[in-house]
């Protein structure tokens, strides 16, 4: 165990997997000489050289497609999207039209083992084009897996699992967490996909939250338990595709009440699917309608007060818990 930044945990995962398998290489804008726009790849160029740590031109469609081709021909590319906002300029076509479908439409002949990873969510005062959570877009697509780590340990453990996996994986990191410190296991640490993390046990309300916003939920829970005496269970799905409904169903059978929190927009957000799944699998256990806390359905404003009002907050989560418990 060591107390390190989220970004370092990600870097460790890449480093260990590159050392383990020389088919693994890292490619993206500023990943090499600049050590990464967010310093995730710090030191990797020095250690592995320019053959395996590669700066690309600003051509998201081009280099993501190159990743797909390299994966089809036996390599294991890690493609960095500096932020997921930039995936829309054609990279999303390489991911959805090619990476996600090649295995199926070739009748099983061509695997596409690659990880496309980068920063998601609101970075803070970056305004509308740079503050988006696109997990709903990718979680909808057959042929992909989607992971969103909320801690350093999960960042490392899920990324190592992702790199060893043989499918195309959408790995969405939290821009706001890169600088946060977490206890992270040294060396081999793998977190399987499809295993939700019961972050904290509780008896009255189940709160489901992924990525950065899970920590906001945890902060809210502290207040709720001390001030409202409502016991909350906090569950982080960690991967959105595949999704661990069982762990959640177990919790709901106990609490009968659910709050779902996400950083993305409310309308058609992943929270809608999570809610629909809970209603479907736990209908008789539910004593109240599920309450969702998500980003307001507006483009992100630059002004920090307005930005804060758009995002889920401790206050909003407390209000949601009160609502779901009719307090």
């Amino acid at each position, binding site marked *: 165990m060591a107390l390190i930044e989220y970004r370092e945990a990600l870097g460790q995962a890449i480093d260990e997997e590159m050392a383990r398998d020389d088919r693994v*290489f890292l490619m993206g804008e500023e990943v090499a000489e600049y050590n990464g726009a967010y310093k995730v790849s710090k030191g990797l160029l020095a250690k592995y050289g320019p*053959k395996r740590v590669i700066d*690309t*031109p600003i*051509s998201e*469609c*081009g*280099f*993501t*497609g*190159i*990743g*797909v*081709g*390299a*994966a*089809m*021909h*036996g*390599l294991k*590319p890690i493609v960095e999207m500096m932020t997921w906002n930039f995936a829309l300029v*054609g990279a999303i*076509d*390489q991911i959805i*039209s*090619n990476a996600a479908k*090649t*295995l*199926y*439409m*070739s*009748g*099983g*002949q*061509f*695997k596409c*083992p690659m990880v496309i990873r980068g920063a998601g969510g609101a970075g803070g005062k970056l305004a509308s084009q740079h503050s988006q959570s696109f997990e709903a877009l990718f979680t909808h697509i*057959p*042929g992909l*897996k989607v992971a969103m780590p909320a801690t350093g340990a999960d960042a490392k453990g899920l990324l190592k699992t992702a790199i060893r*996996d*043989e*499918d195309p994986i959408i790995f969405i990191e939290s821009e706001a967490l890169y600088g946060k410190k977490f206890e992270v296991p040294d060396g081999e640490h793998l977190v399987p*996909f*499809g295993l939700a993390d019961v972050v904290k046990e509780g008896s009255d309300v189940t709160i489901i939250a992924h990525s950065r916003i899970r920590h906001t939920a945890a902060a809210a829970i502290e207040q709720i338990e001390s001030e409202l005496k409502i016991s909350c269970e906090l569950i982080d799905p960690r991967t959105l*595709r*595949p*999704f*661990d*409904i*069982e762990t959640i169903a177990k919790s709901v059978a106990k609490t009968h009440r659910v709050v779902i929190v996400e950083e993305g927009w409310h309308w058609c957000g992943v929270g809608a699917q999570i809610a629909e*799944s809970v209603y479907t699998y736990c209908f008789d256990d539910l004593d109240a309608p599920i309450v969702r806390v998500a980003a307001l359905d507006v483009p992100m404003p630059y002004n920090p007060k307005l930005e804060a009002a758009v995002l889920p907050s401790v206050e909003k989560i407390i209000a949601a818990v009160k609502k779901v418990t009719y307090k």
Partner: protein
Amino acid sequence: MPTAIAAKPRKNDVMATVEKNNSVESVDLLLHLYKEMMRIRRFEEQAFQQYQKSAIGGFCHLYIGQEAVCVGAISCLEKGDKVLTGYRDHGHALAMGMSADSLMGELFAKATGCSKGKGGSMHFFDNALGMMGGNGIVGSHIPVATGVAFAQKYKNEKKVTLGFYGDGAAQQGAIHEAMNIAGLWRLPIIFVLENNKYGMGTSVNRSSATKELFKRAESYNFPGIECDGMDVLEVRKCFSHAIARARFENTPCLIEVKTYRYRGHSMSDPANYRTASEVEEKKKEDPILMLKSILIEHGVKDEKLVAIDEAADLEAKASVEHSIAAPEPELAELTRDVMANPWAPNLLPRVEL
């Protein structure tokens, strides 16, 4: 330094080289090219007929008229080299050595198809033979082809990749990005622009600001070549040089092959955007007839050519019989190969049949 070689058809040189080493082998080679073009022509004719009988569904884009391009180019490849193309992929698949049975089976959506009946006309793949698709999104496969070349270089294979696309596709940004990276990183890829003068109903002069597409290579610091795609020997000439340069010097190349498609864009296209006489004119340059006359000049007996034609026709027709008799994929195919590492059935999303 970028160089743009406008290689006008040089019948004479080509003949010269053929003369020069007019060994049995080189005539064999010409016969091989003839056979491959004939296989494609006859296969497409069968595909056309079977589509009319609606034994084949979806889109079906025929390659008739363009045979010399993929046959000439692919005849320059060696084992381990790779090919990617668009949705007009029947010719490339056959030229890469895929059997008519596996292709017709795919068109018939049968389990015997190269993609188990799940891909169809636009998605022909054969891993063992280096055929990497068969892609439906215009231009989208060219970055992928560039990535295959990247992997070939990464693994030090001394192999090359051919990425085929059309004059319409040339206007896609994805191709610009791929070419810039290929030029910057020096990847062993040949960008093969099959200029058949139309993208669906849009003539290239209404889709491209420049008439000399091959010169765009200058923007990416590698050679651009213009090539007569109705003359399979000219095609071989252009590609053998470019492929050697890619293989041994990691120099990418853009080859604009001037060709022509006789049929409509797809089966539903009446092709009103061009005159019948334009098509007839082009048919006078038919690549198969052109090669035939050269073979005759070299003393090849007509019966021999007729036999090749009959064999090709037989192969195509047999593939129809074979595919009619072949089994449908079982329902379980529906959920197979969605993921290489599928998740446990207790996880969502879950597909129940």
